[in-house]
């Protein structure tokens, strides 16, 4: 049994031999680290193991003798990531004082021979698309923020905000339907259509958040036009243990508190079972801008999830459940009625309700949202190179929106019913077959099916509908040391049947869409520290129910929105190229992209407002145009004096509407930031102490269509942020403590991509305190 246990865990066993024993007094950056990877069981040298050093971003691949050499390393602690097909990614730390020769013994053949199930790894080690990960320390810095705000740490991601509590992520200027969010492997299906509808996901479930930029429809389905966001929990433990983590965060602005806990384990007595429970609570009150409180801007959230997995030798079954519940107050002065009210709001320097004080109470208008996800997944190793998995997911989403405007009749008003009330149920099935290296090829094939039903219970805005979609895809990749090439193709079909009334007559239009998507990707590695990623792809999406059929007053937007039943499929051709150059003191990362759209769906304001019994309202019609969105993101990291790091970022974006011969509306303006960090290790216990200061400048967006917006874009602004923190070692885990300040100077500003900019200044200074406590209740590995 013990033997089985040892084999089960694809733990990396390593022994390192000391070669020299000279201590150097000054900073020495001339150390060599040579690594040899061999098969633990048969002693074969393992070729093609990828070894990356976290701190220096160096990546090497072992040669045919299993050898790899890193040179010119400075003295210090490094984290090595060891990746080899058939083993889970493994991280080891080494304290490099001298030249090291490291021998890594991987239990590689174990896996191949006995087909012991290890973890569910996809065969692609590096994607040909441009991928940005937020994990470990970077992820720590996002804790307490909403998913959208957390994603802003990735260069090229901005958000479309409705105040500080509703953030919709925008990748390279594209948002909503054009972004696909995968929550633990499942495509998030909520009510994505509104600009004030944020993704219904608790970011605390993730131990890693990744952003894949560019069209990526082949693997993920038709809507992945601008990019994909992956929310990934850690793999469940596979050794007998019970561990966990507690995060507690407090913010001064809005007196917001967040607490989140996670506990996971593997049963010692019951082989094969692993589990996790996780929960988050959040409560905040009225936030304040530098000069006044914003009435009714509180937020409440309570989420939980659990997972239970069962693994056998060559198959496994995983179940996952998560529930997300939130109640978000909408700033009452921003919920306006007709054009007269809107004009009055624009013309006043302070919002009407600016005399409010602090309160946790949430009154009308507000949103009340629940989202539930049930997932179960079965996977099977067919042979040692072929693996299949099938997963089923059920999602149920309730969205209730309470308008500020109560029904005129007091009896109806007392019922306090939501004005908008939607229930959407989605069921998906995915089947994927993948193969590891067959000669130099690896690949994936599969299919997916979605059934979705939307029902409204309140006022009509978007119709009831049934959406049935399916897709088939195939993707193959050719892998050599200096080049990787990937080709993928996918076919999708979508059937949308809607149900709504015209007058008193029920109509049931049915629409069919189908399309082919493809991508062609390539990684060039001319040098070990120089990589180029190039991806060309196409993607499409069918017009959504609101774009086709909405017809009414969108109270949350203060406008009448009209769909167009004749809308056609929106198509994009995307090319994204990224270069990564890593030197000892500097890393350069540059991404250039271009998106060419045909039938880009957008809202165009009508020339005349529409007169209703409640006054005149602006009217927006859904239209299609040919458009382009292109730009580049650059990030340069300088390291100097061993303890300092300067990270500079720039994001430049241009978008054009060919039909109107004008700019596209609501695109992020150019922005620049610089962050200087000083960090040092104090002792074995205090592994890091750091202080960080950053400045971000957002330029004014003057590239806007003429005479379209309610108000002119606000001027550019700069924000100063700071953070001081430490990592303390407890056992083999790290406790993190940090004090943060955003908008340090309490700058008064309004952001172009914040819908509240029409009505109020944005959030003022915000001081945060963050504590992350790791827990090890029991771990057999440590004993």
């Amino acid at each position, binding site marked *: 049994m013990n033997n089985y246990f040892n084999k089960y865990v694809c733990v990396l066993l390593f022994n390192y031999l000391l070669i020299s024993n000279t201590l150097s007094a000054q900073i020495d950056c001339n150390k060599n680290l040579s690594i040899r990877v061999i098969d633990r069981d048969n002693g074969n040298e393992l070729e093609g193991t990828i070894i990356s050093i976290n701190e220096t971003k160096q990546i090497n691949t072992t040669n045919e003798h299993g050898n790899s050499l890193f040179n010119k390393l400075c003295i210090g602690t490094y984290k090595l990531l060891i990746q080899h097909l058939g083993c889970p990614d493994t991280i080891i730390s080494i304290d490099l004082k001298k030249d090291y020769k490291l021998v890594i013994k991987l239990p590689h053949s174990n896996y191949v021979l006995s087909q012991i199930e290890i973890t569910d790894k996809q065969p692609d080690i590096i994607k040909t698309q441009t991928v940005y990960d937020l994990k470990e320390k970077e992820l720590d810095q996002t804790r307490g923020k909403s998913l959208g705000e957390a994603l802003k740490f990735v260069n090229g991601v901005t958000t479309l905000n409705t105040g500080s509590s509703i953030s919709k992520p925008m990748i390279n200027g594209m948002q909503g339907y054009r972004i696909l969010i995968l929550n633990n492997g499942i495509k998030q299906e909520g009510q994505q259509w509104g600009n004030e509808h944020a993704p219904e996901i608790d970011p605390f479930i993730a131990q890693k958040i990744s952003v894949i930029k560019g069209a990526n429809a082949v693997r993920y389905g038709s809507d992945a036009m601008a990019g994909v966001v992956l929310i990934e929990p850690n793999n469940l433990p596979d050794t007998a243990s019970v561990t966990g983590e507690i995060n507690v965060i407090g913010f001064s602005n809005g007196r917001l508190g967040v607490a989140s806990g996670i506990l996971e384990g593997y049963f010692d007595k019951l082989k094969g079972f692993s589990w996790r429970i996780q929960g988050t609570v959040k409560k905040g009150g009225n936030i304040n801008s530098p000069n006044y409180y914003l009435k009714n801007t509180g937020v409440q959230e309570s989420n939980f999830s659990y997972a239970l997995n069962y693994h056998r030798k060559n198959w496994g079954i995983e179940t996952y459940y998560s529930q997300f519940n939130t109640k978000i107050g909408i700033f009452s002065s921003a919920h306006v009625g007709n054009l007269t009210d809107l004009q009055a709001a624009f013309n006043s320097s302070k919002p009407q309700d600016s005399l409010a004080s602090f309160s946790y109470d949430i009154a009308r208008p507000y949103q009340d949202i629940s989202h539930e996800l049930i997932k179960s997944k079965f996977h099977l190793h067919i042979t040692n190179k072929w693996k299949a998995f099938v997963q089923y997911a059920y999602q149920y989403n309730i969205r209730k929106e309470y308008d500020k405007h109560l029904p*005129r009749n007091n009896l109806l008003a007392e019922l306090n019913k939501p004005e908008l009330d939607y229930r959407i149920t989605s069921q998906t099935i995915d089947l994927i077959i993948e193969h590891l290296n067959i000669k130099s090829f690896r690949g994936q094939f599969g299919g997916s099916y979605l059934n979705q039903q939307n029902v409204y219970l309140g006022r009509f805005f978007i119709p009831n509908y049934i959406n049935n979609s399916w897709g088939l895809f195939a993707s193959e990749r050719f892998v050599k040391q200096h080049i990787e090439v990937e080709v993928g193709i996918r076919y999708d079909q979508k059937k949308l049947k809607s149900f709504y009334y015209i007058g008193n007559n*029920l109509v049931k239009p049915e629409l069919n869409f189908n399309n082919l998507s493809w991508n062609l990707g390539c990684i060039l590695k001319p040098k070990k520290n120089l990589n180029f990623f190039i991806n060309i792809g196409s993607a499409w999406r069918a017009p959504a129910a609101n774009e086709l059929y909405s017809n009414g007053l969108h109270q949350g937007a203060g406008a009448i929105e009209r769909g167009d039943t004749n809308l056609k499929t929106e198509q994009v051709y995307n090319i994204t190229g990224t270069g990564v150059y890593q030197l000892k003191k500097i890393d350069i990362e540059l991404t250039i992209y271009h998106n060419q759209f045909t039938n880009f769906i957008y809202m165009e304001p009508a020339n005349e407002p529409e007169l209703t019994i409640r*006054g005149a309202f602006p009217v927006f019609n859904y239209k299609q145009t040919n458009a382009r969105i292109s730009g580049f993101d650059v990030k340069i990291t300088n390291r100097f004096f061993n303890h300092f790091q300067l990270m500079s970022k720039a994001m430049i974006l241009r978008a054009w509407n060919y039909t109107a011969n004008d700019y596209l509306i609501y695109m992020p303006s150019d922005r620049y930031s610089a962050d200087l960090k000083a960090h040092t290790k104090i002792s074995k216990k205090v592994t890091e102490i750091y202080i960080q200061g950053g400045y971000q400048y957002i330029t004014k967006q003057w590239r806007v269509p003429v005479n379209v917006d309610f108000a002119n874009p606000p001027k550019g602004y700069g924000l100063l942020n700071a953070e001081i923190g430490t990592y303390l070692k407890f056992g083999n885990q790290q406790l993190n403590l940090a004090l943060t300040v955003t908008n340090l100077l309490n700058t008064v500003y309004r952001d172009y991509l914040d819908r509240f900019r029409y009505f109020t200044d944005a959030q003022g200074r915000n001081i945060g305190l963050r504590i992350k406590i790791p827990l090890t209740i029991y771990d057999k590995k440590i004993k």
Partner: protein
Amino acid sequence: MKKNLKLVLLTIIFFTTVTSCLKKNNLNANVENPIMPENENEIITTMKLTFDNGTTTISYMFKDPDGDGGLTGFYGNLSNSLVLQSDSVINLQTNTNYNVAILLLDETKTITDTVSNSVLIEGKDHMFFFNSLNPIGNPYSVYLTGSMTTVTYLDLDANLRGIGLSTKWQTPNMAMTKSFLSITLKHQPSVKNGTFAPGDTDIEIPFKLKIN
């Protein structure tokens, strides 16, 4: 024992995939039979203004057949029968006192609902405003500068604040060209204080007033 526990855990795995915790809708709406639009919330489709100078009665109206959104609203006047009006001009005579009554209807219902009745009943939560002006004095009145017309509130709520369903309009003794006139009904539940600012707008119709 171990076997049993294993069975229990596998059962949990199974049931996780078939149980949902959130409350489902138990209402009679289903996806193929959406609920009829606006069948619960009353709406206001029509506002009628009747000007009575003691000898003749003229009526003007604004009608939004399905409330806000959907079909566009339009103006009409009513001398004897309804005539569609291309503009929004109300024509009054010089130096005349008019008693003005406002009638609100919901004509989407099978039996037309007279909404103004419930406005009167809930008078302390509702108020009409003319050109968004705060009425002053006793009795409550506003002076419309452009048309030199004084509008006096004739109806009062329980707190002795004006409602505006019934008003008296006093026109000047000289002809005036068209000037802007807006009529607004505000819903001010427990915040009504006789001024325009608080509450929400239930009705807002722009007209033009001409004194001949």
